[in-house]
Structure formats: structure tokens, C-alpha cells
């Protein structure tokens, strides 16, 4: 650890903690999840970056959305995202969450995931290699350093709009709003 790091740790320990302890929630949406096992086991070893998979969203602060999102999966994604404690970071993995990818003209696949939950970063590619996860993690570090990974703040700020989009595509949600939604 060099001197610069030490100063940062002393100045903002919480931010550095969030940076170097990104615990990702196990959530298999699409085919991209197949890249995650090699990246957390001996071949690529995500733990050296402090990235560790956790079994429940309560313990996690990183949400990797790996692959296409069908309408039914979106419901689970929103529930998982809302259960994660703040601050939380979301990364869309693969080209499908970005704009639907090869499932663009599918009747049941979400096209732009960032219209339903806020996304802090994208990993493009079909499929991205496991190395891309680490590139994304290091990019996320930079974003956290500059306070630009503010997806959870945007979610709070635009919650009414996000909730409206979610309700539109899912035809009503069966849980109450996470934040109070003021009537317009």
C-alpha cells in the first residue's frame, strides 16, 4: 500500500471500504453467468480484488446482471435490487441488458435495463471474457473514487419514473413502493 492509498484510507475509510469490498450477489439471469464461476474460482480468482459472491442480496453491494432479462426475470431483479443495502452498484454484463442484444426483436425480453433500475456501468460483448469483469471492477473503483457510481442516488431521485416504467412493463407490482412516491 503506497502513501497515497494510506491518505485516502484515512480521509474516507467508508468509501475505500466500498471500493475494495465489492460483494456480488449470486443472480443468474442469462447465459452470462457461465463466465462467473471461472472468474471466482482458481482460474481468475476474483477474491484478490475483494470481489466475493454472496448468497443473499442483504450482504451484497454489487449486482452483476449477466445476460438477457426477460419480463419475468425483471420482477426478481427489481426485488433483489431493492433488498440490497445502500450504497449499491449495478453492472450490466453482456450486450443483452444494454439494448436487448441479439434478442432485440423479442416479444418478452427487456431492451434497455437502465429504464427500470439504475446501472452504474456496462460490460459490452457477447460474451465478455471473465477478464472483462475485472476491467469493470477497476473502472467501478475509479467511479466510486470520483463519486460517479451514484446509481442508488439516482434511483432515489427518480424513483417515481422508475416505478412507473416497472409497473408499465410488469402490469403492476405486488409490493409497496420502496420510497414514498409523491403524486404529480
Amino acid at each position, binding site marked *: 500500500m503506497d502513501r497515497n492509498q494510506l491518505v485516502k484510507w484515512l480521509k474516507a475509510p467508508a468509501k475505500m471500504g466500498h471500493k475494495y469490498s465489492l460483494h456480488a450477489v449470486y443472480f443468474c439471469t442469462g447465459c452470462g453467468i457461465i463466465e462467473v464461476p471461472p472468474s471466482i474460482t482458481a482460474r481468475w480468482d476474483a477474491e484478490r480484488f475483494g470481489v466475493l459472491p454472496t448468497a443473499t442480496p442483504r450482504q451484497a453491494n454489487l449486482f452483476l446482471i449477466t445476460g438477457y432479462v*426477460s*419480463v*419475468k426475470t425483471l*420482477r426478481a431483479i427489481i426485488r433483489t435490487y431493492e433488498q440490497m443495502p445502500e450504497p449499491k452498484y449495478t453492472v450490466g454484463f453482456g450486450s443483452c441488458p444494454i439494448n*436487448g442484444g441479439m434478442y*432485440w*426483436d*423479442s*416479444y*418478452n425480453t*427487456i*431492451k*434497455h435495463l*437502465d*429504464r427500470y433500475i*439504475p446501472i452504474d456501468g456496462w460490460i459490452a460483448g457477447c460474451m465478455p471474457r471473465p477478464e472483462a469483469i475485472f476491467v469493470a471492477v477497476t473502472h467501478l473503483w475509479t467511479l466510486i473514487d470520483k463519486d460517479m457510481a451514484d446509481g442508488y442516488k*439516482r434511483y432515489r*431521485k*427518480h424513483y417515481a*419514473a*422508475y416505478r412507473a*416504467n416497472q409497473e*408499465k*412493463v*410488469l*402490469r403492476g407490482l405486488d409490493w409497496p413502493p420502496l420510497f414514498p412516491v409523491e403524486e404529480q
Partner: protein
Amino acid sequence: MDRALIDSLSSTFDALRVEVPREDRLTVQAPRDAVMSVLSFLKGRGYDHLHMVSCVDWMEEGQFELVYVLSAYGTGQDSASNPGEEIILKTRIPRELPTVVSSISLFKNAEPYEREIHELFGVRFEGHPRLTPLFLERDYEIPPFRKDFDTRQYVEDFFGSIPPVGEEDQDV
């Protein structure tokens, strides 16, 4: 393929078209009313495993084609069936009034297949205990696997109508 089976099929039922496209495969084309009796006949002859039920939309001809794929476990003592063989039973039903009798009474595992076909093609299976949605979360005007369902138009209309959130304060 066993010659005796083909003979007994065509002698028991009239209006069947039986073909042998490959050595270990038999295609049977049956009218809608005969489906259940042909299925139970085949089940009695040892073809006791329903692989799947599928559906094809022949839009120009105004018909749906239901496809039942059967094979044998080969566990029956006196059955003449061979585990390597498949029997494909096809039936045509009109697109305007797509109803057919459910095959659950013969093959229990037909339940999810028929549910799926009901959901994606809009075929009604009479006697099916729960024709509730299986995969889809939304209602579609036309069931989405029908050929006249315009996916591209649907995507542009529906998913295009969902606005992006908070674009104005992203400084990218």
C-alpha cells in the same frame, strides 16, 4: 420399423396417413377427432413415453399442426416396441377454432407442454386442469408465436414507449 404395427394402425383406423421417413421413425397423420384414440392405441402397443407436444403455425393454410412425439421405454414385457424408435403423430386443426382434447388423461407429462402451447399459440386444450400463463407476464393481443404476430412492430410499439429515466442529469 415394425411392419405389423403399421398394418394394424392402418387397419384399425381409417383416414390415417402413415409414412416411414427413416428406418427408426414413423409419421402418422391423423384427423383431429382420432388423436386420442391413436395415442391410446400406441400407448397400448408399448409406446408409453411422450417426448413432447409441439405446435406449428401454417398460416397460409389456415391451420395449426400439433405434433406429438412418442417413444418407448422398452420396459413392457410383451410389447413389440423398440426403445430406439420414435412415432411422430401429427394433426391439423383450424386456426379459427383451435380446440383439441387434452392428452393429460393418457400422458401426465403433457401438462406443461399443453400449457405452453396454449399460452404461445392460443390453442385450447379441453380437459386441461389449469391453462394459466406459464412464461409470459403480459397479455398479448395475438399469442406471440403465431405467424401474424409482428414482433418487430410490437417491440417498437411497446418497449419503445417506455421512456428513459433521468437522462437530463447524466453528463456523459
